[in-house]
């Protein structure tokens, strides 16, 4: 759902640039408080994995493909603000080096994927965790649902921006974007849950949002 140049109006791009810029400054401050020694290389490797996995477009219905987003994966390991920073790094390099997502739309893309996918859906994960059983199964179900929602909500935000920009009416673009991303989100949930499960089995202390008693006690990034 990387928005190219030209899809979204100058006004929408300006507003999302301001919001994304402001959130990024706040995210750097939060990261400054919370970043432990372990998280420094972890931030790099999570960003690298997200970039690589985003290249793997998988086919969904009707000659359409989708790819991994990764914001909720990053948020479940490192918290919302570091996730937002990771998405900003990935999206900026994709934009500048690979023309994947427009430069004028970079603020919009950070807003849709970093802020909605990474920050908002982190809080959704925290809320779901309190509903489901407090064990690994309940946690992974919360991860699956919130990662699926990160794609659906990010795409819906994109549709709203397209509508505000006068590119396509909301009654047309919102159902179109939401319905295809409901399917792409299944891929997102599958990958995110598998990777988080794998990290839980190897280094549970690196899954910052897994704060149940069976995780090891160390956790600077506790939810």
């Amino acid at each position: 759902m990387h928005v190219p140049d030209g899809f979204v109006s100058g006004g929408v791009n300006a507003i999302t640039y301001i919001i994304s810029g402001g959130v990024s400054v706040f995210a750097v401050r939060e990261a400054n408080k919370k970043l432990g020694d372990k998280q420094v290389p972890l931030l790099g490797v999570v960003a690298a994995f997200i970039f690589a996995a985003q290249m793997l477009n998988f086919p969904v219905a009707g000659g359409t493909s989708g790819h991994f987003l990764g914001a909720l994966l990053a948020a479940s390991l490192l918290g919302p603000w570091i996730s937002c920073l990771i998405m900003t790094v990935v999206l900026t390099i994709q934009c500048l080096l690979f023309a994947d997502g427009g430069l004028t739309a970079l603020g919009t893309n950070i807003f849709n994927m970093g802020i909605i996918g990474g920050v908002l859906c982190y809080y959704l994960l925290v809320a779901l965790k309190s509903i489901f059983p407090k064990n690994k199964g309940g946690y992974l179900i919360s991860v699956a649902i919130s990662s699926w929602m990160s794609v659906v909500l990010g795409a819906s935000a994109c549709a709203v921006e397209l509508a505000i920009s006068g590119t396509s009416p909301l009654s047309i673009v919102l159902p179109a974007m939401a319905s295809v991303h409901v399917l792409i989100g299944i891929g997102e949930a599958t990958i995110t849950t598998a990777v988080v499960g794998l990290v839980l089995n190897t280094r549970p202390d690196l899954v910052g949002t897994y704060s149940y008693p069976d995780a090891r006690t160390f956790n600077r990034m506790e939810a």
Partner: protein
Amino acid sequence: MKNVNIKAFVIVGLLVSLLIAIFVSPFASSYPDGLEKVAEIKGFLEKGEEWVLWKLSLMPDYSIPGSKNEKIVTGLSGFVGTLLVFGVGYGVARLIRSKRS
């Protein structure tokens, strides 16, 4: 598998990412993604074409303009991008950590 050293964890993670980017990404689906497809069907795809920045990026669309072997170039883009993202991510994290007040 418990108590994997953090260095080993990061190295394995980076290697897996590089393998995915270099060897798997050339075989990814080339269908348009969700947004592109919606733009195509709803008739606003052309709004995103013909933009100057396209010519400024070195590897537009994970390719090199004029190159013949698309799969190798995609893998190369994946290699360059993954290492660059790792380096920038790691660098940003170190910078933030070093500025601790």
